[in-house]
């Protein structure tokens, strides 16, 4: 096989990128087909260059083949629904893990810097005696009630997200297990690697960067109350975006 067929197959490979096993099979069959067509052309008296040009011309442009491949791969309603379900499953699991990471960071910030760094009550709040009792403060003053209330909020922003993170870990483990089980693999078939990874990287990463920037700017302007929560949200978003970034980059840069 010489240059013209190689160049053709490289172009076809680029256009079929991300199409998985079906695309790889089309590429292998295209290679065998073109090799045979060139051999037959040479056997019929053509020069190798003529035979290659003729074989490629008859085979169709890479765009034609990629388009036919895409059309032939059109999914049934059930298949399409299954792929949307798989994408939702994976993205929900990663989002849940990000929430868990946010809780973990909130816990670290609250311990390292102080509870007010992650949560606070409005300055003008009035703590009733009943509310103080609910918070476990009996006969305490407003400052004690306020401290108890903030500790309660810290628990909320740590415990609940950690619980969500634990559920997400189970969800992700189930996804990985289903992907390895031949009978369940179909449930984890994603719509399109480029689409899912780019949505994950841009969606999570973009929101994460915005929140991180907001938290850092607040710190720069001397703000110390609840800034940790924004930083935790931002870092968790960026981390979730980074999960998808390598795959998204591979897909986008090879398009």
């Amino acid at each position, binding site marked *: 096989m010489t240059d013209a067929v190689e160049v053709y197959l490289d172009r076809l490979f680029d256009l079929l990128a991300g199409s998985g096993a079906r695309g790889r*099979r089309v590429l292998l*069959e295209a290679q065998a087909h073109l090799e*045979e*067509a060139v051999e037959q052309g040479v056997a019929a008296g053509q020069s190798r260059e003529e035979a290659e040009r003729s074989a490629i011309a008859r085979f169709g442009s890479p765009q034609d083949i990629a388009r*036919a491949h895409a059309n*032939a791969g059109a999914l049934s309603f059930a298949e399409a629904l299954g792929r949307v379900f798989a994408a939702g499953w994976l993205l929900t699991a990663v989002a849940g893990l990000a929430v868990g990471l946010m809780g973990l960071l909130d816990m670290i910030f609250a311990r390292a810097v102080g509870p007010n760094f992650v949560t606070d009550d409005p300055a003008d709040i009035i703590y009733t005696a009943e509310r103080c009792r609910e918070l476990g403060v009996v006969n305490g003053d407003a400052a004690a009630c306020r401290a108890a209330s903030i500790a309660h909020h810290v628990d909320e922003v740590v415990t609940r997200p950690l619980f969500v993170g634990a559920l997400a870990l189970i969800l992700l483990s189930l996804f990985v297990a289903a992907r390895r089980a031949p009978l369940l693999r179909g449930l984890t078939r994603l719509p399109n690697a480029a689409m899912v990874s780019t949505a994950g990287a841009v969606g999570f990463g973009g929101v994460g960067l915005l929140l991180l920037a907001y938290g850092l700017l607040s710190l720069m302007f001397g703000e110390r109350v609840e800034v940790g929560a924004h930083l935790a949200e931002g870092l968790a978003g960026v981390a979730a975006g980074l999960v998808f970034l390598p795959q998204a980059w591979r897909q986008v840069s090879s398009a």
Partner: protein
Amino acid sequence: MQENPRGQLELLLLAVLRSRPAHGYAIVQALSERSGGICEFPEGTVYPALQKLERERLVASEWQRDGARKRRVYRLTRAGIAALAKKTENWKRLERGVHAVLAWQE
């Protein structure tokens, strides 16, 4: 109905495979020979079409080695034989309809 044979590609592929299992290149050759060169289309488009037929379980395929070359050989399934009969009947009915309409010109 399409004038372009691509619109009937699946029917043509099933018809060629009815006689014997074949790989893509042999299918293209058979289509060209049997149609006297009328059914010309980008040869590479048969592969996605064959995959579609396989997904619909109308054909089955397996890799076979022929010397140094590895080729995917396709054969018609039982469902494929039934689908071919149905598609052929539909095509013939359409053809009769078109002939009947065209006959009014004469």
